[in-house]
C-alpha cells in the first residue's frame, strides 16, 4: 500500500486490496447497549463515511472493527476482511491481523503517541515488527513515510516527541504509523475534528491522494457533514446505535430519505443560500446518550413521527441502487 513514489528503502509489498463487511454488530459496555445491530459493507478501495453525533455509537463501531474495544466491552457479530473474520480472531491470529489487515487512526493524536519516544521511533517500530527491518533501515523507512504524509522536514520531525509537534503534524505521524503496517483497511476515527480548518483541509487532501494511489479501503468516522462531502464514496448515517440510512454520497445529499439525514445535510455550514441573521434549520431536542427510547431512536425529535415509530424499530428497506434506509415513512411516500 505504500505508494510508488515513497522511495522507501523498505521492500514494497502490495497487498491485495480487500473490502470490509460488517454484519449484525453489537457492542455493549456492561448494561449499556451502544451498538444495536449494525451491518454495512465497504467494497475494496472505496471510502465509507460513518457520520453521526455524540452517543450514536460510531466510535464504538470503529473500535469494534479494529478490535480495540476497552476491557469490559463485549462484541457480537462478524467483521470480515478478505477471508478473515476479525470478530472471531484471537491470540496470535488477532495480533498478526492488527495493523496489517486493519489499522486504526484515533482522534486525539497527542494522547495516542508515547510521550517519551520520538515520532520516528514509533513509526519504525511498526516497520521492524511487520517487515523485519533492522534498526537503521526502519529509521530510514520512517523518515520516508513522514515525507509521504506531507511533512516538509521529515528528518527533524522524526526526532521530535509528541509534545514538540503541532496538532496537524501529530495527526500525520499517526497516519504514518497506520500506513507503515500496509493495512488493507484503515479506520480513521474523527482524526481532523480537533484541528483547525486549514490544517484539516490539508489532511483531507492528503488522505484523498493516498487512497487514490494505494486503493486502500477507508472508513472515515466524523460528525461533520462537510467532511463527508469532501471525502466519501458512500455514507452511512448513524443514530441511537443504529444505521438509519446508507447510500452513495450523491444520493444521500440530493435525495436524503431519513428525516435525520435531511437535517444533517441542511446544517448551518451548508446553507449558503441563507442571508445573514436568518433563522437556521433546527430540529428540537438532543441526541440520546446511553438510554434509547423504544422504537425508532429518532422519533422523539422527528417532525414526521407516526404512531408506529414509538412502538417498533423500523426495518431497513432498499429504496434505490445501493441506497437503504430504516424509517417507517419509507413505505408511506409516493
Amino acid at each position: 500500500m505504500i505508494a510508488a513514489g515513497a522511495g522507501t528503502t523498505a521492500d514494497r509489498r502490495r497487498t491485495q486490496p480487500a473490502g470490509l463487511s460488517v454484519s449484525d454488530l453489537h457492542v455493549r459496555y456492561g448494561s449499556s447497549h451502544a451498538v444495536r445491530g449494525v451491518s454495512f459493507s465497504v467494497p475494496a478501495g472505496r471510502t465509507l463515511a460513518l457520520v453521526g453525533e455524540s452517543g450514536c455509537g460510531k466510535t464504538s463501531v470503529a473500535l469494534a472493527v479494529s478490535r480495540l474495544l476497552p476491557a469490559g466491552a463485549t462484541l457480537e457479530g462478524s467483521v470480515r476482511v478478505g477471508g478473515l473474520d476479525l470478530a472471531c480472531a484471537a491470540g496470535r491470529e488477532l495480533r498478526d491481523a492488527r495493523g496489517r489487515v486493519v489499522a486504526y487512526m484515533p482522534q486525539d493524536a497527542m494522547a495516542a503517541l508515547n510521550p517519551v519516544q520520538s515520532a520516528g521511533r514509533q513509526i519504525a517500530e511498526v516497520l521492524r515488527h511487520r517487515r523485519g527491518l533492522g534498526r537503521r533501515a526502519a529509521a530510514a523507512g520512517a523518515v520516508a513515510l513522514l515525507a509521504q504524509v506531507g511533512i516538509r522536514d521529515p528528518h527533524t520531525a522524526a526526532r521530535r516527541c509528541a509534545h514538540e509537534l503541532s496538532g496537524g503534524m501529530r495527526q500525520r505521524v499517526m497516519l504514518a504509523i497506520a500506513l507503515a503496517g500496509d493495512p488493507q483497511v484503515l479506520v480513521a476515527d474523527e482524526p481532523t475534528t480537533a484541528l483547525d480548518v486549514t490544517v484539516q483541509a490539508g489532511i483531507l487532501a492528503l488522505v484523498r491522494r493516498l487512497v487514490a494511489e494505494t486503493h486502500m479501503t477507508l472508513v472515515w468516522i466524523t460528525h461533520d457533514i462537510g467532511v463527508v462531502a469532501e471525502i466519501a464514496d458512500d455514507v452511512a448515517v448513524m443514530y441511537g446505535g443504529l444505521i438509519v440510512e446508507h447510500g452513495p454520497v450523491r444520493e444521500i445529499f440530493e435525495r436524503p430519505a431519513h428525516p435525520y439525514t435531511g437535517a444533517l445535510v441542511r446544517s448551518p455550514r451548508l446553507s449558503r443560500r441563507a442571508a445573514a441573521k436568518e433563522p437556521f434549520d433546527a430540529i428540537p431536542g438532543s441526541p440520546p446518550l446511553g438510554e434509547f427510547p423504544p422504537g425508532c431512536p429518532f422519533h422523539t425529535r422527528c417532525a414526521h413521527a407516526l404512531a408506529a415509530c414509538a412502538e417498533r424499530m423500523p426495518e431497513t428497506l432498499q429504496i434505490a441502487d445501493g441506497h437503504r434506509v430504516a424509517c417507517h415513512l419509507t413505505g408511506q411516500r409516493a
Partner: protein
Amino acid sequence: MARYLATRVGLGVLTIFSVVLLTFLLMFVVPGDPARAIAGPRATPQVLALVRANLHLNEPVMTQFWRYLVGMLHGDLGVSYIQNQPVATLIAQRLPATAELGLSGLALELILGGALGVWDGLRPKRSRLLAVVNVGLLSVPTFSLAFLLLLAFGYELSWFPIDGGTGGSRIVLPALTLGLFGMPYYANVVRDSMQETLAAAYTRTAVAKGLSRGAIIRRHVLRNALSPVLTMAGLDFAILLSGVVFVETVFGWPGIGQLQTQAFYDVDRPVLMGTVVVAAVLVVIATLTIDLLRMLIDPRTRVQAR
C-alpha cells in the same frame, strides 16, 4: 534552564537555613542542663558557671545562633559536650555506615515495592497479596517492625547476629526493616500508575500495531508507569532518613542515627544540631538530584523547566 537550577539551589539553601534555625530554637526548649552533664553531678556552682561561660551559654539566643551559623559555614559544627570531640569528626566517622544502610534500604523498598506494584498492576483487581501487604506493613511503625524482626529472626531463630556493629550478615535485618516498611508505599503507587498507563491511548496504539504483550509492556508501559517512582523516592527520602534513625538504634548499627539518639538522651546539643544539619543537607541534595534525573528521563519536564 540555568535560571531554574539557580532558583532550586537557592531554595535549597533557604531550606537548610530554616531547618537549622528552627532546630536551634527547639534546643532551648529541651529540658536538661548541659553544664551539669559535662561537669558531673558533684560539680560546684563555680565550676558550673565556668563551664557555662566557656560554652557561651549565658549569651542571648540569637548571638549563640549566629556564632553557630558562622562556625557551620567553616565546617565547624562545634564540639560534643560529652565526647569532647569535634562534631564534624564524629559524624564523618559514622557516615559510611549510615550510607550503607540507607542505600540498601532504599534499594530494597524500590525493588520489592516496584516488583509487587508491576505484578499487581497487570491484574484488573488488587491481588490478595497486595491487600495483605497493605494491612500488614503499611500500618506498622518502623521501630515495631524492627523489634519484631530482631526478636523473630535474631533472637528466637538466631539466623542473624544481634550484637550490634557492622559486617557480615548484620546488614540484612536492618535493611530489610527499611525495605519492608517502605514497600507498600511504592507498591500501591506503582500499581495505580500501571493501571493508568495500561488504559492510556498510547498503549492502545501499541496494541493496534500487533506487538506482543511482552513488547508492549517493556517498551511502552513500564517506562511511563515507573516514572513517578523517581519523584516519589525524592519525596520519600526524608522519611527514609527518619526510619534509619530508629533502625540503627534498635539494631545497634553504628551510624549517624544511633549517634543522634544517644545525643538526645545526653542533651548533647552540638551533636544534635550537627546531625540535623547533615540530614537537611542530604535531603536537599537528594531532592535536587532526583529532579535532574527526572529531566533526563522524561523530555516533557525539560520544557517546564524553562
